[in-house]
């Protein structure tokens, strides 16, 4: 190879690869159950079979994504031990509680998902079947909560003392509920919901663009965009709190993300732009006071810059692009869903305009991109630490000589899984379009069952 073999470097690449792949399915796994529950509930409340069919069809596609989520999650769970044995040895002493609880959440979710999927017509009361999806929603969201507290701990470790390499005074609850936990878990969970709403909305909008203008799809878009609007506002607000958390506890991460070199009062926000070789910012938009507002909620407050830190303690500066892209996408998603709601309220004959439908379709892949950007920013922005201020990344890594071969093996595996799962999903819905299923089940234009 053209670079020298360094197990820590390859371990980082392999970890990033697995997590980057897992997170797509994990996000859907956390958010879609909520959307399924919403659809089924609407179906029962409005006595409209279209919504129940939505729930049914979403659930069917969901099983396939869950499967990939489960196997890649198992992969990352094992891989953390294989690639970061020294880190996991320390983490086992301090943060294994939420990891352990996460497994219980999965267990709970897996059991009820099995039941939910196979009991659509088994109970007399539709409401009883709906009740079964609630444990799935709870299990999925709690597993996201628990795993994210582990990641929060990596950013703001506390709940133990390290004296000469020996860990003492352990407090598992303090480790779990560290300063990063509130913003981090809230932002992760709500973005899972937001992304899932947009991915499902994308399917409906795409069908409409293909010429299938059945009310079934219109109802799908209405449901998903209403939910998406609420979640996108939540995302932006919690994202703002995340920035305030960073300013307080990891100022060098925020400074790297914002290209904020000098500590100053009334700091402007740098949007976009390019960095020249001698660290000059070109072509950027500067919004006066905005960084001070993002960091502390006060236009004149002082924001710590990169000048306060040794260079080897700060993250690479390209994280700025990731951060800006994420924020841009967040604004975009809020805008599209708001536009849809406005039109459906004021100008009904424009609400299924081609441009808007395309905007919704684009929201699906964009929201997944935002998840990827956000995570890569959060993880690389933490560098050079694997455990902030305590353990540097290479210290946590394996010393094995074969991490590179494993990286190629897993690239192959994920390519295979990615391709197969998209083929299976496409075929599933192509061979059995919604219109055909409505006919089979005797559901009419108004959503009544004959």
């Amino acid at each position, binding site marked *: 190879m053209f670079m020298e073999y360094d197990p820590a470097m390859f371990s980082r690449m392999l970890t990033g690869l697995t997590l980057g792949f897992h997170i797509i399915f994990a996000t859907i796994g956390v958010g879609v159950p909520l959307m399924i529950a919403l659809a089924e509930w609407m179906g029962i409340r409005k006595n409209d079979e279209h919504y129940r069919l939505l729930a049914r069809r979403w659930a069917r596609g969901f099983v396939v994504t869950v*499967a990939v989520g489960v196997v890649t999650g198992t992969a990352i769970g094992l891989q953390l031990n294989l690639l970061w*044995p020294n880190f*996991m040895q320390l983490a086992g*002493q301090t943060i294994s*509680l939420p990891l352990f609880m996460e497994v*219980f959440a999965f*267990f709970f979710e897996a059991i009820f998902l099995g039941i939910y999927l196979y009991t659509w017509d088994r109970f007399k009361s539709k409401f009883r079947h709906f009740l079964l999806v609630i444990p799935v929603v709870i299990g999925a969201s709690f597993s996201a909560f628990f795993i994210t507290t582990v990641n929060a701990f990596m950013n703001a470790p506390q709940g133990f003392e390290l004296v000469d390499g020996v860990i003492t005074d352990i407090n598992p609850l303090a480790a779990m509920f560290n300063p990063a936990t509130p913003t981090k878990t809230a932002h992760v969970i709500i973005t899972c919901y937001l992304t899932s709403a947009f991915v499902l909305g994308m399917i409906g909008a795409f069908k409409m663009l293909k010429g299938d203008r059945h009310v079934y799809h219109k109802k799908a878009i209405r449901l998903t965009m209403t939910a998406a609007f609420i979640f996108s506002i939540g995302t932006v607000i919690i994202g703002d709190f995340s920035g305030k958390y960073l300013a307080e506890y990891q100022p060098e991460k925020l400074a790297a993300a914002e290209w904020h070199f000098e500590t100053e009062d009334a700091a402007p926000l740098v949007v976009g732009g390019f960095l020249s070789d001698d660290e000059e910012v070109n072509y950027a938009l500067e919004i006066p006071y905005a960084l001070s507002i993002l960091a502390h909620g006060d236009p004149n407050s002082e924001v710590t810059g990169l000048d306060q830190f040794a260079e080897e303690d700060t993250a690479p500066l390209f994280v700025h692009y990731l951060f800006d892209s994420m924020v841009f996408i967040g604004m975009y998603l809020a805008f599209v869903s708001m536009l849809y709601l406005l039109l459906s309220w004021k100008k009904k004959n424009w609400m299924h305009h081609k441009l808007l439908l395309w905007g919704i379709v684009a929201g699906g892949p964009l929201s997944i991109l935002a998840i990827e950007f956000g995570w890569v920013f959060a993880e690389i922005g933490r560098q050079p630490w694997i455990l902030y201020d305590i353990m540097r990344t290479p210290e946590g890594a394996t010393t094995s000589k074969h991490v590179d071969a494993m990286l190629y093996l897993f690239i192959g595996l994920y390519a295979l899984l990615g391709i197969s799962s998209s083929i299976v999903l496409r075929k599933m819905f192509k061979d059995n379009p919604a219109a055909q299923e409505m006919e089979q089940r005797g559901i009419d234009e108004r959503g009544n069952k004959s």
Partner: protein
Amino acid sequence: MSYEILGISVLWFFLYGYLIVASVDFGAGFFHFYNKISHQDYQVNKLIQRYLSPVWEVTNVFLVFFFVGIIGFFPDTAYYYGTALLIPGSISIVLIAIRGSYYAFNTYGSKDSKIYSFLYGMSGLLIPASFTIVLTISEGGYLDVSDGNVTLLLGELLTSTYSWSVVVLAIVSVLFISAAFLTYYAYKAGDDASYTLFRRYTLWWAFPTILASMLIFFSISRHNPEHFSNMLDMSWMFILSLLFFLGAVYLIYSKKKLGLAFVLVMLQFFSAWFGYGASHLPYLLYPHLTVNDGFVNETMAIALILAFIAGLLLLIPSLVFLMRLFLFDADYVRGKR
């Protein structure tokens, strides 16, 4: 009982749970594929699918529980096993990934595919074989631990009779356990053709299972005499296991009490599994790591045990509910729901 022993017993118990449910699962996947290519009765495969569909994800969680739990209770295992197992561990991950996802693709996708069925049938047999490497390594003699580095002696591992006899035992046990369960399930479903087929499979795989177990005793006595002499001190557990086995085979042979027969199979593996585990103590990795020096701090141990108890209170009723709906519901088993 000390926390160390409590912790390892709980984990060992979950691994036992995985051993049983995963064996049924993996064996069923293999039979599904085998029956398909040998054009045996389509009915059989429907039966297998009916059992597997609602439960496969639950099976996987047993495994995740074990490896998350072992890092929680014994963090030092991450250091020893993590470093050494990179390659075999990664291969297991790939197999699990293929098995789980192609199972789902085949079952929930729009049509039953021979390639998918092959992928999950075969990977299911290889997974137990690849996992047993961990048990093999724990006997000592396959790792080099020097100046802060742990490396796997791959040559030793691949040329050792002990490691191969464990692999053989893993594969035949999977087929035996699975066939015994499916015999009972087919019987309950009132599906005569499947019942006859699986009964034949069970009897067929019974003999190799016992033969492979004997081989293990023999090879462990040569590989790790200390462990072997501990096993002899607990020989009653292994004798008990043999009696359970004979009872199970007798019942299935004479077509009586098939439910009890499967329970006996479970007990056969239970006593052998705990006999093996107990005689392995105090070592987690012979001779480098024991349950005592690798144990987590006490505060975390108590927190984990409390979480565990709370978790069980949540899970046991849910599992009972799942089993009542799918395993013990005569209408579902017969395919009427």
